[in-house]
Protein backbone atom coordinates (compact mmCIF):
# COMPACT_ATOMS: atom_id res chain seq x y z
CA UNK A 1 0.00 0.00 0.00
CA UNK A 2 1.45 3.42 -0.91
CA UNK A 3 2.47 5.63 1.94
CA UNK A 4 -0.12 8.18 3.11
CA UNK A 5 -3.10 6.14 1.97
CA UNK A 6 -5.87 5.47 4.49
CA UNK A 7 -6.03 1.98 5.83
CA UNK A 8 -9.41 1.22 4.25
CA UNK A 9 -8.20 2.50 0.80
CA UNK A 10 -9.84 5.29 -1.30
CA UNK A 11 -13.44 4.90 -2.33
CA UNK A 12 -14.39 5.13 -6.05
CA UNK A 13 -15.80 8.66 -5.82
CA UNK A 14 -12.62 10.00 -4.31
CA UNK A 15 -10.52 8.31 -7.04
CA UNK A 16 -12.63 9.84 -9.86
CA UNK A 17 -12.51 13.26 -8.28
CA UNK A 18 -8.74 12.96 -7.98
CA UNK A 19 -8.39 11.90 -11.67
CA UNK A 20 -10.68 14.69 -12.90
CA UNK A 21 -8.64 17.26 -11.05
CA UNK A 22 -5.40 15.82 -12.32
CA UNK A 23 -6.42 15.55 -15.99
CA UNK A 24 -8.62 18.63 -16.16
CA UNK A 25 -11.80 16.64 -16.61
CA UNK A 26 -13.99 18.60 -14.28
CA UNK A 27 -16.73 18.74 -16.92
CA UNK A 28 -16.53 15.12 -18.05
CA UNK A 29 -19.98 14.32 -16.81
CA UNK A 30 -21.54 17.52 -18.13
CA UNK A 31 -23.56 17.24 -21.37
CA UNK A 32 -21.77 18.31 -24.58
CA UNK A 33 -23.35 21.25 -26.39
CA UNK A 34 -24.28 19.77 -29.79
CA UNK A 35 -25.74 22.95 -31.28
CA UNK A 36 -22.52 24.28 -32.94
CA UNK A 37 -21.86 20.86 -34.46
CA UNK A 38 -25.41 20.70 -35.80
CA UNK A 39 -24.98 24.19 -37.25
CA UNK A 40 -21.83 23.10 -39.04
CA UNK A 41 -23.40 19.92 -40.37
CA UNK A 42 -26.42 21.84 -41.64
CA UNK A 43 -24.15 24.27 -43.44
CA UNK A 44 -22.21 21.39 -45.02
CA UNK A 45 -25.46 19.70 -46.03
CA UNK A 46 -26.75 22.91 -47.60
CA UNK A 47 -23.46 23.36 -49.46
CA UNK A 48 -23.55 19.87 -50.96
CA UNK A 49 -27.24 20.15 -51.84
CA UNK A 50 -26.81 23.46 -53.62
CA UNK A 51 -23.36 23.18 -55.20
CA UNK A 52 -23.13 19.55 -56.19
CA UNK A 53 -24.77 17.71 -59.05
CA UNK A 54 -26.03 14.24 -58.35
CA UNK A 55 -24.20 11.74 -60.57
CA UNK A 56 -27.29 9.85 -61.60
CA UNK A 57 -27.59 11.80 -64.87
CA UNK A 58 -26.92 10.26 -68.24
CA UNK A 59 -23.47 11.82 -68.66
CA UNK A 60 -20.30 9.83 -68.10
CA UNK A 61 -17.04 11.32 -66.92
CA UNK A 62 -14.68 9.61 -69.32
CA UNK A 63 -15.87 11.67 -72.28
CA UNK A 64 -14.17 15.02 -72.83
CA UNK A 65 -16.35 17.24 -75.01
CA UNK A 66 -14.71 19.90 -77.21
CA UNK A 67 -14.73 23.58 -76.17
CA UNK A 68 -16.74 26.17 -78.10
CA UNK A 69 -17.61 29.82 -77.68
CA UNK A 70 -21.30 30.02 -78.62
CA UNK A 71 -22.38 27.19 -76.33
CA UNK A 72 -25.40 27.87 -74.15
CA UNK A 73 -26.79 26.24 -71.04
CA UNK A 74 -28.61 23.03 -71.88
CA UNK A 75 -32.22 23.65 -70.90
CA UNK A 76 -35.06 21.44 -71.94
CA UNK A 77 -38.03 23.30 -73.42
CA UNK A 78 -41.26 22.76 -71.51
CA UNK A 79 -42.99 19.46 -72.33
CA UNK A 80 -39.98 18.26 -74.36
CA UNK A 81 -37.98 15.20 -73.42
CA UNK A 82 -34.23 14.81 -73.73
CA UNK A 83 -32.17 11.73 -74.54
CA UNK A 84 -28.40 11.87 -74.09
CA UNK A 85 -26.27 9.78 -76.47
CA UNK A 86 -22.67 9.46 -75.28
CA UNK A 87 -20.34 8.75 -78.22
CA UNK A 88 -16.88 7.51 -77.30
CA UNK A 89 -13.72 8.55 -79.08
CA UNK A 90 -10.68 6.56 -79.96
CA UNK A 91 -9.00 7.43 -76.67
CA UNK A 92 -11.70 5.68 -74.67
CA UNK A 93 -12.71 2.85 -76.98
CA UNK A 94 -9.21 1.63 -77.81
CA UNK A 95 -7.29 1.32 -81.03
CA UNK A 96 -8.41 1.54 -83.78
CA UNK A 97 -11.34 3.92 -83.18
CA UNK A 98 -14.63 2.20 -82.66
CA UNK A 99 -18.20 3.40 -82.68
CA UNK A 100 -19.09 2.82 -79.03
CA UNK A 101 -22.26 4.43 -77.73
CA UNK A 102 -23.64 4.77 -74.22
CA UNK A 103 -27.34 5.47 -73.92
CA UNK A 104 -29.56 5.16 -70.83
CA UNK A 105 -26.45 4.04 -68.94
CA UNK A 106 -25.97 0.99 -71.18
CA UNK A 107 -22.86 0.78 -73.34
CA UNK A 108 -23.10 -0.67 -76.85
CA UNK A 109 -19.89 -1.46 -78.72
CA UNK A 110 -19.33 -2.64 -82.25
CA UNK A 111 -16.73 -5.24 -83.06
CA UNK A 112 -15.09 -3.37 -85.94
CA UNK A 113 -15.43 -0.36 -88.23
CA UNK A 114 -17.87 -2.24 -90.44
CA UNK A 115 -19.85 -3.77 -87.61
CA UNK A 116 -22.99 -1.91 -86.59
CA UNK A 117 -24.25 -3.48 -83.36
CA UNK A 118 -24.11 -0.17 -81.52
CA UNK A 119 -26.17 1.58 -84.20
CA UNK A 120 -28.71 -1.25 -84.24
CA UNK A 121 -29.09 -0.92 -80.46
CA UNK A 122 -29.35 2.87 -80.73
CA UNK A 123 -32.12 2.63 -83.31
CA UNK A 124 -33.98 0.14 -81.11
CA UNK A 125 -33.84 2.56 -78.15
CA UNK A 126 -34.91 5.48 -80.36
CA UNK A 127 -37.80 3.52 -81.87
CA UNK A 128 -39.10 2.81 -78.39
CA UNK A 129 -38.75 6.47 -77.39
CA UNK A 130 -40.48 7.62 -80.61
CA UNK A 131 -43.46 5.35 -80.03
CA UNK A 132 -43.96 6.72 -76.52
CA UNK A 133 -43.38 10.41 -77.34
CA UNK A 134 -45.85 13.18 -78.11
CA UNK A 135 -45.55 14.01 -81.81
CA UNK A 136 -46.40 16.91 -84.10
CA UNK A 137 -46.47 17.23 -87.92
CA UNK A 138 -43.32 18.58 -89.61
CA UNK A 139 -43.82 22.32 -90.33
CA UNK A 140 -42.09 21.80 -93.71
CA UNK A 141 -44.99 19.55 -94.80
CA UNK A 142 -42.80 16.56 -95.43
CA UNK A 143 -45.49 14.30 -94.01
CA UNK A 144 -43.25 13.30 -91.13
CA UNK A 145 -44.41 13.15 -87.55
CA UNK A 146 -41.70 14.64 -85.32
CA UNK A 147 -41.37 13.62 -81.68
CA UNK A 148 -41.06 16.27 -78.97
CA UNK A 149 -37.67 14.92 -78.00
CA UNK A 150 -34.30 16.65 -78.14
CA UNK A 151 -31.39 14.29 -78.79
CA UNK A 152 -28.23 15.42 -77.06
CA UNK A 153 -25.16 14.08 -78.87
CA UNK A 154 -22.34 14.08 -76.35
CA UNK A 155 -19.34 13.07 -78.42
CA UNK A 156 -15.75 13.00 -77.25
CA UNK A 157 -13.47 15.63 -78.85
CA UNK A 158 -11.46 12.90 -80.59
CA UNK A 159 -14.35 10.78 -81.82
CA UNK A 160 -14.04 10.16 -85.56
CA UNK A 161 -16.36 12.55 -87.37
CA UNK A 162 -17.84 9.65 -89.32
CA UNK A 163 -19.21 8.15 -86.09
CA UNK A 164 -20.99 11.39 -85.18
CA UNK A 165 -22.37 11.63 -88.72
CA UNK A 166 -23.66 8.09 -88.61
CA UNK A 167 -25.27 8.61 -85.21
CA UNK A 168 -27.10 11.59 -86.74
CA UNK A 169 -28.20 9.48 -89.68
CA UNK A 170 -29.44 6.70 -87.47
CA UNK A 171 -31.29 9.35 -85.44
CA UNK A 172 -33.05 10.80 -88.47
CA UNK A 173 -33.85 7.27 -89.69
CA UNK A 174 -32.37 7.62 -93.18
CA UNK A 175 -29.99 4.67 -93.06
CA UNK A 176 -30.57 1.12 -92.00
CA UNK A 177 -27.97 -0.30 -89.61
CA UNK A 178 -29.63 -3.71 -89.97
CA UNK A 179 -28.80 -3.63 -93.69
CA UNK A 180 -25.09 -2.67 -93.74
CA UNK A 181 -25.84 1.08 -93.33
CA UNK A 182 -27.55 1.32 -96.71
CA UNK A 183 -30.06 4.15 -97.32
CA UNK A 184 -33.40 3.23 -95.85
CA UNK A 185 -36.30 2.77 -98.22
CA UNK A 186 -39.34 4.04 -96.36
CA UNK A 187 -42.25 6.45 -96.59
CA UNK A 188 -42.80 9.48 -94.32
CA UNK A 189 -45.58 7.56 -92.60
CA UNK A 190 -43.26 4.76 -91.52
CA UNK A 191 -40.17 6.87 -90.67
CA UNK A 192 -39.31 7.64 -87.07
CA UNK A 193 -36.97 10.62 -87.33
CA UNK A 194 -35.37 12.68 -84.56
CA UNK A 195 -34.31 16.02 -86.03
CA UNK A 196 -33.86 18.27 -82.99
CA UNK A 197 -30.27 17.85 -81.86
CA UNK A 198 -28.01 19.45 -79.29
CA UNK A 199 -24.25 18.89 -79.48
CA UNK A 200 -22.72 18.88 -76.02
CA UNK A 201 -19.78 21.17 -75.55
CA UNK A 202 -18.16 23.31 -72.86
CA UNK A 203 -16.79 26.79 -72.40
CA UNK A 204 -12.98 26.87 -72.84
CA UNK A 205 -12.34 27.41 -69.11
CA UNK A 206 -14.72 24.70 -67.82
CA UNK A 207 -13.76 21.15 -66.84
Amino acid at each position, binding site marked *: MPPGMPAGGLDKKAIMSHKKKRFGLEHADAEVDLVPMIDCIFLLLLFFMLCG*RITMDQRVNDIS*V*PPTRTAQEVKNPKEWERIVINVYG*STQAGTPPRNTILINNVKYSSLGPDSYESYIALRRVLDRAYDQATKFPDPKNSGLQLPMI*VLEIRAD*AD*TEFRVVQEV*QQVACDTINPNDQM*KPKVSTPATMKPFVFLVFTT*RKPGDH
Partner: protein
Amino acid sequence: MAEDPSEKINEGKIDLVPMIDCIMLLLLFFILTTKFTAPEKGIASVLPTDKGQSASPPKAPVDPPKQINIVILPEGFVDGYEPSQYQAKLLQERSRLSAQNGIFPTAFLRVGGSSGIVLEGSKLNGKNNAGAESEISRISTYIETELGGEREKPGVGRKEQDPIVINCFSGLSWKFALLTYDGVRAYEIKKAGAHMGNDPKEWDKQREINFAPPRVRNYSVKELGEELYEEVHLK
Protein backbone atom coordinates in the same frame (compact mmCIF):
# COMPACT_ATOMS: atom_id res chain seq x y z
CA MET B 1 -31.77 1.07 -16.13
CA ALA B 2 -32.15 3.07 -19.39
CA GLU B 3 -33.10 6.71 -19.13
CA ASP B 4 -36.68 7.43 -20.14
CA PRO B 5 -36.71 9.99 -23.07
CA SER B 6 -39.96 11.48 -21.76
CA GLU B 7 -38.10 12.55 -18.65
CA LYS B 8 -35.78 14.71 -20.78
CA ILE B 9 -38.70 16.29 -22.60
CA ASN B 10 -40.25 17.07 -19.27
CA GLU B 11 -36.99 18.71 -18.30
CA GLY B 12 -37.14 20.85 -21.49
CA LYS B 13 -34.38 18.95 -23.32
CA ILE B 14 -34.82 17.33 -26.73
CA ASP B 15 -32.84 14.26 -27.67
CA LEU B 16 -30.85 15.45 -30.69
CA VAL B 17 -29.07 12.18 -31.41
CA PRO B 18 -31.62 10.68 -33.89
CA MET B 19 -31.71 13.97 -35.79
CA ILE B 20 -27.91 14.06 -35.98
CA ASP B 21 -27.93 10.46 -37.24
CA CYS B 22 -30.32 11.38 -40.04
CA ILE B 23 -28.39 14.50 -40.99
CA MET B 24 -25.13 12.60 -41.03
CA LEU B 25 -26.65 10.01 -43.37
CA LEU B 26 -27.94 12.75 -45.66
CA LEU B 27 -24.55 14.44 -45.60
CA LEU B 28 -22.83 11.18 -46.45
CA PHE B 29 -25.25 10.64 -49.36
CA PHE B 30 -24.60 14.07 -50.81
CA ILE B 31 -20.83 13.80 -50.36
CA LEU B 32 -20.75 10.50 -52.21
CA THR B 33 -23.18 11.29 -55.00
CA THR B 34 -22.25 14.81 -56.01
CA LYS B 35 -19.60 15.96 -58.44
CA PHE B 36 -18.27 19.44 -58.87
CA THR B 37 -17.66 19.62 -62.61
CA ALA B 38 -18.87 22.71 -64.44
CA PRO B 39 -22.26 22.12 -66.07
CA GLU B 40 -21.92 21.32 -69.75
CA LYS B 41 -23.30 23.53 -72.47
CA GLY B 42 -24.90 22.73 -75.81
CA ILE B 43 -25.17 23.90 -79.40
CA ALA B 44 -28.54 23.32 -81.02
CA SER B 45 -29.04 22.00 -84.54
CA VAL B 46 -32.01 20.89 -86.61
CA LEU B 47 -31.57 18.20 -89.23
CA PRO B 48 -33.32 19.04 -92.51
CA THR B 49 -36.40 16.97 -93.26
CA ASP B 50 -36.53 17.85 -96.94
CA LYS B 51 -33.06 16.87 -98.16
CA GLY B 52 -30.27 14.37 -97.65
CA GLN B 53 -29.53 10.91 -98.96
CA SER B 54 -32.43 9.43 -100.83
CA ALA B 55 -32.91 5.83 -101.66
CA SER B 56 -33.46 6.57 -105.34
CA PRO B 57 -31.57 9.26 -107.32
CA PRO B 58 -33.65 12.01 -109.00
CA LYS B 59 -34.72 11.02 -112.52
CA ALA B 60 -34.09 14.38 -114.22
CA PRO B 61 -30.81 16.27 -113.71
CA VAL B 62 -31.35 19.33 -111.53
CA ASP B 63 -29.13 22.34 -110.88
CA PRO B 64 -27.31 21.97 -107.58
CA PRO B 65 -28.79 24.36 -105.00
CA LYS B 66 -26.70 27.39 -104.17
CA GLN B 67 -24.89 26.84 -100.93
CA ILE B 68 -21.67 27.79 -99.18
CA ASN B 69 -19.34 24.86 -98.70
CA ILE B 70 -16.91 24.80 -95.82
CA VAL B 71 -14.30 22.06 -96.12
CA ILE B 72 -12.17 20.54 -93.35
CA LEU B 73 -9.37 18.20 -94.44
CA PRO B 74 -6.29 16.63 -92.90
CA GLU B 75 -3.40 19.05 -93.33
CA GLY B 76 -1.11 18.54 -96.33
CA PHE B 77 -3.63 17.18 -98.82
CA VAL B 78 -3.52 19.49 -101.82
CA ASP B 79 -5.39 19.10 -105.10
CA GLY B 80 -4.05 17.56 -108.27
CA TYR B 81 -3.86 13.89 -107.31
CA GLU B 82 -5.90 10.79 -108.07
CA PRO B 83 -8.05 9.04 -105.43
CA SER B 84 -5.58 6.17 -105.25
CA GLN B 85 -2.76 8.61 -104.44
CA TYR B 86 -4.82 10.26 -101.69
CA GLN B 87 -5.61 6.82 -100.32
CA ALA B 88 -1.93 5.85 -100.26
CA LYS B 89 -0.90 9.09 -98.57
CA LEU B 90 -3.70 8.76 -96.04
CA LEU B 91 -2.65 5.24 -95.06
CA GLN B 92 0.94 6.41 -94.78
CA GLU B 93 -0.10 9.27 -92.47
CA ARG B 94 -2.23 6.99 -90.33
CA SER B 95 0.62 4.57 -89.96
CA ARG B 96 2.88 7.45 -88.88
CA LEU B 97 0.26 8.52 -86.31
CA SER B 98 -0.41 5.03 -84.97
CA ALA B 99 1.03 5.98 -81.57
CA GLN B 100 -1.73 8.60 -81.30
CA ASN B 101 -4.50 6.14 -82.29
CA GLY B 102 -4.35 7.49 -85.85
CA ILE B 103 -5.78 10.84 -84.74
CA PHE B 104 -4.74 13.71 -87.01
CA PRO B 105 -3.28 16.47 -84.82
CA THR B 106 -4.02 19.26 -87.30
CA ALA B 107 -6.63 20.02 -89.94
CA PHE B 108 -7.02 22.46 -92.81
CA LEU B 109 -10.13 24.66 -92.91
CA ARG B 110 -11.32 26.42 -96.05
CA VAL B 111 -14.51 28.36 -96.88
CA GLY B 112 -15.43 27.78 -100.53
CA GLY B 113 -12.43 28.23 -102.80
CA SER B 114 -10.63 30.71 -100.54
CA SER B 115 -7.23 30.18 -98.98
CA GLY B 116 -7.68 28.43 -95.68
CA ILE B 117 -6.13 28.15 -92.23
CA VAL B 118 -4.57 25.30 -90.28
CA LEU B 119 -6.36 24.18 -87.09
CA GLU B 120 -4.20 23.01 -84.19
CA GLY B 121 -5.95 20.08 -82.50
CA SER B 122 -3.62 20.00 -79.51
CA LYS B 123 -4.84 23.44 -78.45
CA LEU B 124 -8.41 22.15 -78.21
CA ASN B 125 -7.70 19.32 -75.78
CA GLY B 126 -7.39 19.11 -72.02
CA LYS B 127 -6.78 22.10 -69.82
CA ASN B 128 -5.03 24.30 -72.34
CA ASN B 129 -7.50 27.17 -71.82
CA ALA B 130 -5.39 29.96 -73.25
CA GLY B 131 -4.63 27.85 -76.33
CA ALA B 132 -8.29 26.95 -76.80
CA GLU B 133 -9.40 30.59 -76.50
CA SER B 134 -6.89 31.81 -79.07
CA GLU B 135 -7.64 28.96 -81.49
CA ILE B 136 -11.40 29.53 -81.24
CA SER B 137 -10.88 33.26 -81.84
CA ARG B 138 -8.72 32.57 -84.87
CA ILE B 139 -11.31 30.21 -86.39
CA SER B 140 -14.17 32.67 -85.71
CA THR B 141 -12.27 35.59 -87.24
CA TYR B 142 -11.45 33.60 -90.37
CA ILE B 143 -15.05 32.41 -90.84
CA GLU B 144 -16.45 35.88 -90.17
CA THR B 145 -14.13 37.41 -92.75
CA GLU B 146 -15.07 34.81 -95.35
CA LEU B 147 -18.82 34.78 -94.75
CA GLY B 148 -19.13 38.52 -94.29
CA GLY B 149 -17.84 39.52 -97.71
CA GLU B 150 -19.52 38.80 -101.02
CA ARG B 151 -21.17 35.70 -99.61
CA GLU B 152 -23.54 37.80 -97.46
CA LYS B 153 -26.81 38.66 -99.22
CA PRO B 154 -27.74 42.24 -98.33
CA GLY B 155 -31.28 43.18 -97.33
CA VAL B 156 -32.65 39.68 -96.62
CA GLY B 157 -33.31 37.83 -93.39
CA ARG B 158 -31.07 35.15 -91.93
CA LYS B 159 -33.32 32.35 -93.14
CA GLU B 160 -33.04 33.57 -96.73
CA GLN B 161 -29.22 33.58 -96.72
CA ASP B 162 -27.52 30.77 -98.65
CA PRO B 163 -27.38 27.60 -96.60
CA ILE B 164 -24.00 26.60 -95.20
CA VAL B 165 -22.81 23.01 -95.49
CA ILE B 166 -19.82 21.84 -93.46
CA ASN B 167 -17.93 19.05 -95.26
CA CYS B 168 -15.52 17.43 -92.83
CA PHE B 169 -13.35 14.47 -93.78
CA SER B 170 -14.85 11.49 -91.96
CA GLY B 171 -11.54 10.39 -90.43
CA LEU B 172 -10.89 13.69 -88.64
CA SER B 173 -11.77 14.38 -85.02
CA TRP B 174 -15.21 15.69 -84.14
CA LYS B 175 -13.68 18.75 -82.44
CA PHE B 176 -12.62 20.22 -85.82
CA ALA B 177 -16.15 19.96 -87.22
CA LEU B 178 -17.79 21.33 -84.06
CA LEU B 179 -15.34 24.23 -83.80
CA THR B 180 -16.13 25.20 -87.38
CA TYR B 181 -19.85 24.96 -86.66
CA ASP B 182 -19.23 27.15 -83.61
CA GLY B 183 -17.46 29.75 -85.77
CA VAL B 184 -20.41 29.87 -88.19
CA ARG B 185 -22.82 30.19 -85.27
CA ALA B 186 -20.75 33.01 -83.78
CA TYR B 187 -21.11 34.85 -87.09
CA GLU B 188 -24.86 34.19 -87.23
CA ILE B 189 -25.36 35.31 -83.62
CA LYS B 190 -23.61 38.56 -84.50
CA LYS B 191 -25.97 39.02 -87.44
CA ALA B 192 -29.20 37.52 -86.09
CA GLY B 193 -29.03 38.29 -82.41
CA ALA B 194 -31.45 36.34 -80.25
CA HIS B 195 -32.63 33.85 -82.87
CA MET B 196 -29.76 31.45 -82.29
CA GLY B 197 -30.90 29.96 -79.02
CA ASN B 198 -31.46 26.35 -78.06
CA ASP B 199 -35.27 26.70 -78.10
CA PRO B 200 -36.76 24.48 -80.87
CA LYS B 201 -39.47 27.11 -81.48
CA GLU B 202 -36.79 29.55 -82.63
CA TRP B 203 -34.95 27.10 -84.86
CA ASP B 204 -37.08 27.68 -87.97
CA LYS B 205 -36.05 31.38 -88.03
CA GLN B 206 -32.36 30.59 -88.36
CA ARG B 207 -30.12 30.23 -91.37
CA GLU B 208 -29.66 26.64 -92.44
CA ILE B 209 -26.31 25.32 -91.21
CA ASN B 210 -25.71 21.62 -91.61
CA PHE B 211 -23.02 19.00 -91.72
CA ALA B 212 -22.87 17.30 -95.11
CA PRO B 213 -24.34 13.80 -94.96
CA PRO B 214 -21.64 11.13 -94.99
CA ARG B 215 -20.87 9.21 -98.14
CA VAL B 216 -22.78 6.01 -98.43
CA ARG B 217 -20.40 3.23 -97.46
CA ASN B 218 -19.38 1.64 -100.73
CA TYR B 219 -16.74 -0.68 -99.29
CA SER B 220 -14.27 0.07 -102.10
CA VAL B 221 -10.58 -0.22 -101.30
CA LYS B 222 -10.17 3.44 -102.16
CA GLU B 223 -13.22 4.65 -100.22
CA LEU B 224 -11.33 7.18 -98.08
CA GLY B 225 -9.17 8.26 -101.03
CA GLU B 226 -12.29 8.96 -103.09
CA GLU B 227 -13.84 10.92 -100.25
CA LEU B 228 -10.68 13.00 -99.88
CA TYR B 229 -10.52 13.56 -103.63
CA GLU B 230 -14.07 14.95 -103.64
CA GLU B 231 -13.50 17.16 -100.62
CA VAL B 232 -10.16 18.53 -101.79
CA HIS B 233 -11.76 19.58 -105.10
CA LEU B 234 -14.99 20.94 -103.55
CA LYS B 235 -15.27 24.72 -103.86
